[in-house]
């Protein structure tokens, strides 16, 4: 069942078109990603969903509500983590959580949230002394403290170190598993691939694709490359005659074989028949990165 519906959304700032035409629906209980290059209109889109901006065109329904007209009601059902939004320097972690939980009619126990987000030993720390990852986790905690049905998280892991990023991902999966629908804005492929059930790729204010991460990857040319260093010289022709192979190159003793289908199996069979061992064997497959680049390629 759709919990967020965005139809023909359009928004411009003066002469600049931020969102040209965006439509998508988010199902209840999924992690839905909005992926796109910088300036594609991702943040503007979610700000319209949050009711922070008034769209020029289009309709938005969130949990049956109109984000502008039913602002007050929506604010109780939606938790928001904003890009680059801070708290006062000197506020303590527990004060911020206690304060924010007082805004909601039926808040979560913030003491539990603190533990779940690994902030329990920073409870008495002032906001200004927290690390980037801790600030981000506090920000997620504040977004969840009102027991929202929907959490909107904008550029959640930007500026975090790899470990903090992975911890945050685990956290988001935990949120989804507890029944909250998550709308996630990101420009990290790895993050989208790991977390999102479905994705909308936005480019220049338009949706260019909506699919699962695997579905998006399968849209690009599924060419693969196998690289290896043979244990003894092998004749290139042995590979060229394979159906799966489209190209064979040999650079300084290393083979790069391009092809389709079950390429790796075909190549290793030839090697085995000739009693050749492949060292430094690597297989490159199309990734979400490739899908993203081909979907958002500048049109000439």
């Amino acid at each position: 069942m759709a919990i967020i519906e965005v139809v023909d959304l359009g928004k411009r700032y003066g002469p600049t078109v931020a969102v040209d035409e965006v439509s998508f629906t988010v199902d209840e209980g999924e992690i839905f990603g909005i992926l796109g290059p910088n300036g594609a209109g991702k943040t503007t889109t979610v700000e319209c969903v949050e009711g922070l901006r008034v769209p020029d065109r289009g309709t938005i329904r969130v949990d049956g509500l109109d984000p502008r007209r039913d602002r007050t009601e929506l604010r109780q059902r939606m938790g928001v983590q904003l890009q680059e939004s801070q708290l006062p320097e000197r506020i303590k972690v527990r004060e911020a959580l206690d304060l924010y939980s007082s805004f909601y009619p039926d808040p979560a126990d913030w003491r539990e949230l603190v533990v779940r987000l690994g902030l329990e030993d920073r409870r008495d720390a002032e906001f200004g002394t927290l690390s980037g990852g801790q600030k981000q986790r506090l920000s997620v905690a504040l977004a969840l403290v009102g027991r929202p049905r929907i959490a909107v998280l904008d550029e959640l892991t930007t500026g975090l170190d790899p470990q903090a990023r992975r911890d945050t991902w685990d956290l988001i999966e935990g949120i989804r598993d507890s029944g909250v629908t998550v709308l996630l804005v990101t420009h990290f492929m790895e993050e989208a691939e790991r977390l999102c059930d479905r994705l909308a790729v936005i480019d220049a204010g338009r949706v260019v694709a909506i699919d699962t991460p695997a579905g998006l990857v399968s849209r690009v040319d599924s060419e693969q490359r196998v690289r290896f260093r043979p244990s003894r010289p092998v004749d290139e022709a042995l590979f060229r005659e394979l159906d799966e192979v489209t190209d064979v190159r040999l650079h300084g003793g290393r083979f790069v074989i391009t092809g389709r289908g079950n390429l790796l199996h075909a190549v290793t069979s030839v090697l085995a028949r000739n009693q050749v061992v492949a060292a430094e064997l690597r297989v490159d497959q199309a990734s979400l990165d490739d899908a993203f680049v081909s979907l958002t390629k500048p049109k000439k």
Partner: protein
Amino acid sequence: MLKLVRVEAKLFLREGASVIFAILFPTVLLLVLGAIPALRTPDPMFGGTRFIDGYAGTLVVITLAFLGLQRVPTTVATYRERGVLRRLSTTPLHPGKLLAAQLLVNLIAAVVAVLLVVAVGRLVFDIGLPHHLVGFTLTVLLGAASLFSFGLVIAALASTAKAAAGWATVAFMLVMFFGGAYLPRFLLPDAVNTVGQYLPPGVAALQDSWVGTAPSPPHLAVMAVIALLAGTVAARTFRWE
């Protein structure tokens, strides 16, 4: 809302500078000046009274000017710049309530500072309690209202927290000068004193109501109009983000 006021009050108290300057400084200044024998001896130069009697109104000006023209505009502009107000507007609480809490905390600080000056003046230097209590209270409230609204106008119009601090400092210096904080009012030219009578927070009205007579209605009226105008401009031009 109560929780918000409590948190804002804690944040206020954690800023050592604002506590020292807004709340303690006027009293400390009174003690320092009062420690100089010449300034606590009646002298025809001060109109037959003591210097410290004539300076009492100015002490209130210092508190109100610091809170209204330093604390309020820089805190509010910083909250906007750092997205604190924007963050709040995604919760059921209207960010306007944060501003209200902020003003309330500053008003409480002003009242505490004034009470402290009055108490120390009475106990240590035998300066009479405000004679015209209603007039004095009204003047303090109007002075606070007009300076706080003016501080909000600065926060509304300045594009960044830095710019707000800059403008606020200019306004602060002017109010301090006209209020007799740098040079005592009896040394200032008449023209300057006349401006000072009408400029918030109304040093003449504070002084008058403290030492005896009712504050002059035109002085109060001008402050009320300034408070109203500045409040309207602030409300019209304020940006939450």
